[in-house]
């Protein structure tokens, strides 16, 4: 059966194609239902200003989930690093120091997560649930439960660099795009990414082929910590405000974005392109529902429907491969016996 590859198979090999199609369909639907909002560029500029923190978090989480791990502590990193940055700007007038320390704080929290999971051996869902409380709580203590208003921050170069505007275009969308592209290469074209995929696929196999799961997992948690801190920098600067529970709302949205994008909850299979689409879908449904005149109450219900539809869709897309396996088994074309029937 040396048939040339079918068009369907070739299309499916393009990463994230189905979920990007869903994204486009959603845009088209919203354009029809709420043309006055969705045919103007402003709504898209608003997306590009608000999606980046979510996207950076989701892209980072994609790599961890690829390795079969999870991080629930990133909302607390968003809070902690935001406080570090806010404190440095507000009290010390040292924005660059704040930037460096915020990222370092994220790396440190990530490293601690990595040690707890990879060295101590605590399942990541438990370890990071605990550190989520720890660092979130500590942020509240450090900030004394207060917020910082950073209304003058837009006069600083650090603001212009990360969340300024080029014409109407929010700069943070370029940063987020850059992060997503880098992470795509890390996952698909670096040894580290390949090792994460094999760890998520089967740790025993990974060890047998010479991967060091402890080291690679620790690295992945550190990477996630730094990315969460970077997301916090974008968020805090864009909002021109720090509040001690910032990041809390991201936990479920970020996970939804990753899974809508087609990354497997079981590890071993992940798509950064899908995660990018998933992130936009999450934010767009929210804005779109409000714009169509439906009550805001509907948002979560509709996200749920889209989420389920996406997950079921991914299952169906994987279907054909299983079907070909069955077909080949039926025809008795088992691997090595190419020389006719026994």
């Amino acid at each position, binding site marked *: 059966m040396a048939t040339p590859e079918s068009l369907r198979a070739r299309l499916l090999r393009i990463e994230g194609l189905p979920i990007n199609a869903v994204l486009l369909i959603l845009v088209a639907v919203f354009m029809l239902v709420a043309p006055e909002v969705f045919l103007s560029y402003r709504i898209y500029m608003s997306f590009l200003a608000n999606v980046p923190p979510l996207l950076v978090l989701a892209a980072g989480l994609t790599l961890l989930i690829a390795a079969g791990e999870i991080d629930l502590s990133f909302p607390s990193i968003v809070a902690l690093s935001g406080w570090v940055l806010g404190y440095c700007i507000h009290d010390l007038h040292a924005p660059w120091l704040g930037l460096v320390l915020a990222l370092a704080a994220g790396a440190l929290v990530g490293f601690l997560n990595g040690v707890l999971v990879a060295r101590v051996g605590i399942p990541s869902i438990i370890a990071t649930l605990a550190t989520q409380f720890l660092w979130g709580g500590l942020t509240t203590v450090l900030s004394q439960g207060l917020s910082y208003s950073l209304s003058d921050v837009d006069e600083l170069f650090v603001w212009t660099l990360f969340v300024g505007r080029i014409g109407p275009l929010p700069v943070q969308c370029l940063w987020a795009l850059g992060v997503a592209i880098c992470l795509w290469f890390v996952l698909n*074209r670096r*040894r580290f990414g390949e090792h994460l995929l094999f760890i998520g696929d089967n740790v025993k196999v990974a060890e047998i*082929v010479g991967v060091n799961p402890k080291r690679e997992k620790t690295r992945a948690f550190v990477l996630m910590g730094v990315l969460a801190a970077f997301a916090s920098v974008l968020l805090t600067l864009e909002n021109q405000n720090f509040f001690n529970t910032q990041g809390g709302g991201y936990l479920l949205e970020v996970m939804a974005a990753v899974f809508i994008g087609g990354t497997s909850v079981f590890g071993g299979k992940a798509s950064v392109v899908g995660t990018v689409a998933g992130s936009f879908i999450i934010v767009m449904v929210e804005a779109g529902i409000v714009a169509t005149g439906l009550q805001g109450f509907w948002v979560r219900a509709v996200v749920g429907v889209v989420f389920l539809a996406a997950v079921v869709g991914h299952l169906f897309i994987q279907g054909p491969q299983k079907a070909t396996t069955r077909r080949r088994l039926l025809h008795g*074309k088992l*691997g090595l016996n*190419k020389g006719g029937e026994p």
Partner: protein
Amino acid sequence: MPDSTAVLTRDEAAFRHIVRLERVDMTFGRVQSLSQVDFEVGRNEIVGLIGDNGAGKSTLIKIISGVLRPTAGTVWVRDKRVDPSSYSVRLAHDLRIETVHQGLSLGEQQPLWRNLFVGRQIVGRFGFIDVKQEKAIANQLLRQAIGFRSQGITADSTVRDLSGGERQGIAIARAMHFEADLIVLDEPTTALAVNEVRKVLAFVEGVKTGGRACIYIEHNLAHVHEVADRLVILDRGRVVRNLKKGEVSLAELTNQMIALHEGNADGHA
């Protein structure tokens, strides 16, 4: 399968044993999996390793392939002592020791090209994986070494889509491609149909004619008796017999194994 194995004559540096273990112990918690094991493989020798389930065969080869570190004892590769703290799968690969592990040593959801090169990726100057080259070599291997013509299997196929025999073929092809001096096969015929088993046996003999060595773990005594130069019998973590080819007939070997097995059963009763 064996036609690409006969080309190898390289690295004529003098050594007697490709690998040698001396008084190796391995304990997992309170379980003593290997005790005081002496084991060696000559440079052009096929050693059949047999024993009951739980005799320690897989543990032994995991030590040789760098997956496990022995709790005590010494490992020698090419007559040179190996520092146990630095011995790893990677180092074993560098020392040209390749292992086809029992069951699976492949990532099921990953494409074949990744499976062939993981741990030894071809990377460019900036550390990016050269996907094009990896795929090209993988496709060549699939066609020539394994004979996956006209099966619709390409470098991009995932392992999940392959049958047991095909998977074993990939694992063996990986060992062949990296041109090892010692190939360790842990029950390579378990999942295979009869004619596929013949190919594996032919491959083992090809290793011998290629001037290389092989450790061959096998439950089927007839297979291992046929190809091995020497048979080592493990029983409850100890080497209990060391038999040269021709020293024992298949029938005698079978009786010995049954006697050992019954001895174990009595011991446990």
